[in-house]
C-alpha cells in the first residue's frame, strides 16, 4: 500500500520548515517531538549530577566535593530526573504522539493547551536551571520542612517555583488526555476496543489532574512560610512539619504511578505485538490501571513511618499499601500469560519489555518489603530504598520508555533504527543497570544511609561496583542517541506497518500526514485482534 513514494508524500515533518513552524505548532506530533528534545536535555543534566554522585562515592572519605555540594548534587539530580524528565517522559512524548492516533483522532482535544503545556515545562525548567546555576538547592527532592522553610539558605523558592510551573504542564496534559479520550474516539472505537496504552494514559491523566494541584498548594505554603514567615510547618512558629510530609506525599506517591502507569501501557502494546496475541485478560488489565490510580491515593503514609506520624496511622497505611501491589501484580501475570503459546519474536522493543518485566518485579516486590512497617524502620533512608525506586523508575519506566521509543520510532520518523546496535544497547543497559543498583540493595540492608558521602570503609567494594555499573549504563544510554540520529538519514525506510501490528497508528503512512489519517477510520475490531491483521507484505526501500 505505502511504498517508496512515502518520501514524496506530505507528512507532519515536511509540512513546514523553520523555527516558527515548530515553536507555534499545534500538531500533537510536533509537540511530542519538542517534548522529546526537552526531556532528553533534562535527562542529560540529571545524568551529569548522577555521574558526579557516583564518582564521589568511589571513595569513602568524601574527598571530591564538600558535604554542602554533595547535598546539592543529589537534590538537583532528583529534582531534574523526577519533575523534568520522568513525569513528562512517556505521556508527553509517546502519549502525545500516539494517544490521538490510537483512537483514530486528528489531534488532541485542545491543541493550543497542548502547546502551552510544553511552554510551561520549558519555563519551569528555566527556573530550575536558574536555581542550579545561581548556586543550587540542597533540601533533597522532597523539600522536607522545617529545613526547607527555615534553615536552608539555598535557592529553594526558585526551584520550587519551577516545579510549580512544570506541575501545570502536567495538569494540562492530563486534562487534554481525559477530554480527548471522552470526546474524540473514532466511530466504532468503544472504550473496550481502546488499546491498553490509552487506558493507562487515561488513568495517569486522572492522577495528574487530581494530585498535582495538591503539590502546587504545598509549594505555595512552603514559599509562604519561607518568605512571609507564616507558621504552617515550622514547629517554632506553631506549625507542624509532618503536615508537609502528608501534603507532599499525597501528590508524590501517586506521582510514582504517573511515572509507571504509562510505562505499563507501553508494555501491553509491546508484549501483544511481539507475541502476536491479544493481551490475556484485556479488561482486567484495563481496570487494573484505574485501580492503581485510585488505590495509589490511599497509601502515601508509607513514606512517613519514621516521621513521628501516629503508629495507628502507620499500621493503616502499611496495610493499605499492600493493596496497590495487587493491580500491579495482575498486570505482570497477565503479560506473562500473554506470552504463553505466543509467537514470540525478540526484536529490540521486546528485549526492553522483558527487561521491564523482570526489573519491575524486583522493584515492586521490594516495595512490599518497605511497605512493611517493621522492616521499613530498619531500611528507611538507606540505599535499600534508593535501590527499590530505581528498580522501578529506571529499570521499569525508562526501560519501557526506550522500548516504546524503538517500537514507534519507524512511525515517528519513517525510518528503522539499526537492529543490531539497538539490541546491543538494550543488553548493555540491562547489565549496567543491574550492576549499578543491585549492590545498593545489599548496601542499604547492611546500613548504608542514603544522602551521605562519607561512609565506613567496608562499604567501598559495593560502591565501586555500583559506580562501575553506572559507567556501563551511561554507555548504554549514549548508544541510542547516536544510532537514532544516524537512522534519521541512513535508516531503512520503514513503511506504514513494519511490525504488522494492529493499532490504528499503523494504518497510516510513516511519518504520518499532518492530520494523521486521510480518512477518519471506522473501527470494527477490538484492539490486538491478531487474527484479523491483513498479512500484507510491506515493501521497503
Amino acid at each position: 500500500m505505502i511504498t517508496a513514494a512515502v518520501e514524496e508524500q506530505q507528512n507532519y515533518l515536511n509540512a513546514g520548515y523553520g523555527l516558527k513552524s515548530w515553536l507555534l505548532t499545534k500538531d500533537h506530533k510536533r509537540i511530542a517531538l519538542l517534548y522529546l528534545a526537552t526531556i532528553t536535555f533534562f535527562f542529560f543534566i540529571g545524568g551529569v549530577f548522577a555521574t558526579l554522585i557516583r564518582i564521589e562515592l568511589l571513595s569513602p572519605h568524601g574527598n571530591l566535593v564538600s558535604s554542602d555540594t554533595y547535598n546539592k548534587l543529589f537534590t538537583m539530580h532528583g529534582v531534574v530526573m523526577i519533575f523534568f524528565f520522568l513525569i513528562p517522559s512517556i505521556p508527553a512524548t509517546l502519549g502525545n504522539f500516539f494517544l490521538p492516533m490510537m483512537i483514530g483522532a486528528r489531534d488532541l482535544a485542545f491543541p493550543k493547551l497542548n502547546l502551552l503545556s510544553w511552554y510551561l515545562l520549558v519555563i519551569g525548567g528555566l527556573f530550575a536551571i536558574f536555581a542550579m546555576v545561581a548556586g543550587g538547592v540542597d533540601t533533597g527532592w522532597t523539600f522536607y520542612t522545617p529545613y526547607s522553610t527555615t534553615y536552608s539558605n539555598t535557592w529553594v523558592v526558585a526551584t520550587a517555583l519551577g516545579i510549580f510551573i512544570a506541575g501545570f504542564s502536567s495538569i494540562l496534559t492530563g486534562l487534554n488526555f481525559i477530554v480527548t479520550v471522552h470526546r474524540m474516539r473514532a466511530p466504532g472505537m468503544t472504550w473496550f476496543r481502546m488499546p491498553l496504552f490509552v487506558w493507562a494514559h487515561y488513568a495517569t491523566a486522572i492522577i495528574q489532574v487530581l494530585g498535582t494541584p495538591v503539590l502546587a498548594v504545598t509549594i505555595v505554603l512552603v514559599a509562604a512560610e519561607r518568605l512571609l514567615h507564616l507558621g504552617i510547618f515550622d514547629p517554632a512558629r506553631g506549625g507542624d512539619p509532618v503536615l508537609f510530609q502528608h501534603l507532599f506525599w499525597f501528590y508524590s506517591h501517586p506521582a510514582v504511578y504517573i511515572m509507571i502507569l504509562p510505562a505499563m501501557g507501553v508494555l501491553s502494546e509491546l508484549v501483544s505485538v511481539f507475541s502476536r496475541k491479544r493481551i490475556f485478560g484485556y479488561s482486567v488489565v484495563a481496570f487494573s490501571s484505574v485501580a492503581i490510580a485510585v488505590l495509589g491515593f490511599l497509601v502515601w503514609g508509607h513514606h512517613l513511618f519514621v516521621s513521628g506520624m501516629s503508629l495507628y496511622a502507620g499500621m493503616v497505611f502499611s496495610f493499605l499499601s499492600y493493596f496497590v501491589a495487587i493491580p500491579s501484580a495482575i498486570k505482570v501475570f497477565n503479560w506473562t500469560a500473554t506470552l504463553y503459546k505466543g509467537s514470540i519474536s525478540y526484536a529490540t522493543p521486546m528485549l526492553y519489555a522483558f527487561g521491564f518485566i523482570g526489573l519491575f518485579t524486583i522493584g515492586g516486590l521490594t516495595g512490599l518489603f518497605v511497605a512493611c512497617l517493621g522492616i521499613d524502620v530498619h531500611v528507611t533512608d538507606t540505599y535499600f530504598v534508593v535501590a527499590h525506586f530505581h528498580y522501578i523508575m529506571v529499570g521499569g519506566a525508562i526501560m519501557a520508555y526506550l522500548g516504546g521509543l524503538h517500537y514507534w520510532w519507524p512511525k515517528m520518523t519513517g525510518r528503522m533504527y539499526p537492529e543490531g546496535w539497538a539490541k546491543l544497547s538494550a543488553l548493555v543497559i540491562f547489565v549496567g543497570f543491574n550492576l549499578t543498583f543491585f549492590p545498593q540493595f545489599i548496601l542499604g540492608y547492611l546500613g548504608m544511609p542514603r544522602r551521605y558521602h562519607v561512609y565506613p570503609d567496608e562499604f567501598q567494594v559495593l560502591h565501586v561496583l555500583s559506580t562501575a555499573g553506572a559507567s556501563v549504563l551511561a554507555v548504554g544510554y549514549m548508544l541510542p542517541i547516536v544510532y537514532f540520529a544516524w537512522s534519521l538519514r541512513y535508516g531503512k525506510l520503514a513503511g506504514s506497518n513494519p511490525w504488522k501490528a494492529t493499532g490504528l497508528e499503523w494504518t497510516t503512512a510513516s511519518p504520518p500526514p499532518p492530520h494523521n489519517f486521510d480518512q477518519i477510520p471506522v473501527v470494527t475490531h477490538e484492539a490486538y485482534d491478531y487474527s484479523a491483521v491483513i498479512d500484507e507484505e510491506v515493501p521497503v526501500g
Partner: protein
Amino acid sequence: MTGHIDSVKTYTTVWIALLILTAVTTTVAYVDLGPLNVVVALTIAAVKMLLVTLFFMHVRHSTKLTKLVISGATLWLAILIVLTLADYISRGWL
C-alpha cells in the same frame, strides 16, 4: 447542557442566603461553643460551597459526567483530609 440559566430572582435569593450565612459565621465566632465552633463554621462553609457550585456554577443543570467529576474531586479532598486526620487524631493513643 448549558441552556438553563436561572432567573435573576433565584440568583438574588442565593446571594442573600450567602450573605446571611456569612453573618451567621461571624456571629457564631463570638460565641464560645467549645469544639463545636469548628463544626459549625465548617458546616456553614460546606453549605455555602454547595450553593455556589449548584447555582452559580450551574452544576444543577449539568450532565451526569460533570457531576461525577465534581463528586470525584470532593471525594479526593475528603481522602486527603480523612487520612491526614487519622494521623493527628490517633497520635496521643500510644
